[in-house]
């Protein structure tokens, strides 16, 4: 159960970028979507008031209500803060306010407008085409060995000649892989080019593939940042 939960969590975070836009555009008027984001909104508002109270209670000390008995966070805050540390409450308030405004701006905005259509067209649809139009494994292996033969004919530069054999092989392997990615040979460009985008019919397939690659790269970086932060 834990592994399945972990897998689903990883999958949801791997395609964070794609999933957010897809859910927001396709399921904007669904009950579940609305309920989730409205509950987030109310949570943000509740925490905003909580942090406001945190500031007020530290300034007016002792506060007549003494809610710090029941609010553990406030209790901890007052217990550890010295001098003017309680002003950190401002940063908490601003973070929650920022979250509230972002939630409202992103998920309660009209989806029929051009900006969301553009995102959906560029990211969700293009990534779906990108994932479908990979070269078959046979062709990829063929291209790899062609490059390897070509590389073996060339002389290895002086810096890498004295490396151990294992490291040299790895270096060559990574260099070939990078070349394949850089020249966009791992993808069938003709197949990709057959599906033209609705908003940008004149954009070249090469640029579209490059943008897809940047999205994939950003997704991986973002998932790493979120995992580290959480």
């Amino acid at each position, binding site marked *: 159960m834990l592994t399945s939960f972990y897998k689903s969590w990883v999958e949801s975070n791997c395609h964070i970028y794609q999933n957010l836009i897809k859910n927001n555009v396709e399921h904007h008027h669904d009950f579940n979507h609305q309920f989730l984001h409205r509950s987030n909104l109310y949570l943000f508002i509740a925490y905003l008031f909580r942090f406001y109270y945190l500031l007020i209670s530290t300034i007016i000390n002792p506060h007549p209500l003494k809610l710090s008995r029941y609010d*553990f966070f406030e209790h901890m805050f007052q217990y550890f803060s010295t001098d003017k540390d309680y002003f950190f409450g401002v940063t908490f308030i601003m973070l929650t306010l920022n979250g509230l405004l972002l939630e409202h701006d992103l998920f309660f905005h009209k989806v029929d407008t051009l900006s969301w259509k553009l995102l959906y067209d560029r990211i969700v649809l293009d990534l779906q085409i990108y994932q479908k139009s990979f070269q078959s494994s046979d062709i990829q292996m063929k291209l790899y060995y062609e490059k390897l033969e070509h590389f073996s004919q060339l002389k290895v530069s002086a810096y890498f000649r004295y490396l151990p054999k294992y490291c040299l092989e790895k270096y060559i392997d990574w260099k070939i892989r990078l070349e394949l990615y850089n020249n966009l040979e791992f993808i069938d460009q003709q197949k990709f080019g057959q599906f033209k985008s609705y908003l940008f019919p004149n954009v070249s397939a090469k640029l579209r593939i490059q943008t897809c690659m940047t999205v994939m790269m950003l997704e991986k970086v973002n998932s790493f940042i979120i995992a580290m932060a959480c």
Partner: protein
Amino acid sequence: MLVLLITCTYLVFINVHILNFSDTAVTILLTYFLTVFYQQLNVYFLPLVVLDLLVYIYLIGRIMKMFVFIFSLAIWASLFYMKHIQILTEFLKKTLILAQKGALSQKAFSQRLFSFLNEHTKISMLYNFTDHEVWSRVSFHCMACQIPTNIYIVYRAMDPKLNGSKLIVTYLFMVNQIVMIFIALMFLAKAAKVIPQGHRYIPKLQCFIPKTMLLFKLKYMQLYERLNNKKKIGTAVGPIGTITYKMNFRVCLIKLNTLSFLQN
């Protein structure tokens, strides 16, 4: 600016929640539980505490997710528009060279002129429209929420009672902010710089447009005026203005000035 603000908020999040308030996140969590057990001495509150912690972590994760989403969108959009406009300007340059050589027929020349004009106006309009619709508002909110935290950090750095470690962390935060602002703004400033680049070739191109294509002459004149306008095309921060290299320089200068003021 969008990217800058998000990175700044991310930095605030890291510095405030993890470094500055207490030593590590683990100590925060430990102290949280310890205060519950040793101060309150009530075990019945424990599920409530766990729930409270989970909600708190969920909300922070939610904010992080949204920041990351906007951050990557800004980078992606600026790169995409920049690259597309670069290709278009290269196309215009090539048409100019071919026209100078006389290698283009009138039909091919008009087709090339039309395709450039159409695509360029479409891209710039889309960029402006989408920016005004969502992203400028979002970036303005981010910036507005950053101002009080920045004020507090300067106020904190001016406090003579601050110990060594706390002072170092506040200065580290400020230097971090300057570096991240500079890096983040560079992407968007570059995009704003690239979009009006085609105007360099338009006056030369006007010479090669024949009298029969008067409409193109007028349209290219309009395009030239639009690109040379004071109001730049690019990502904007609400009503403040578009992000350019000049703005980047000014913002960094203000930040550096605050640092120098604090040292004196």
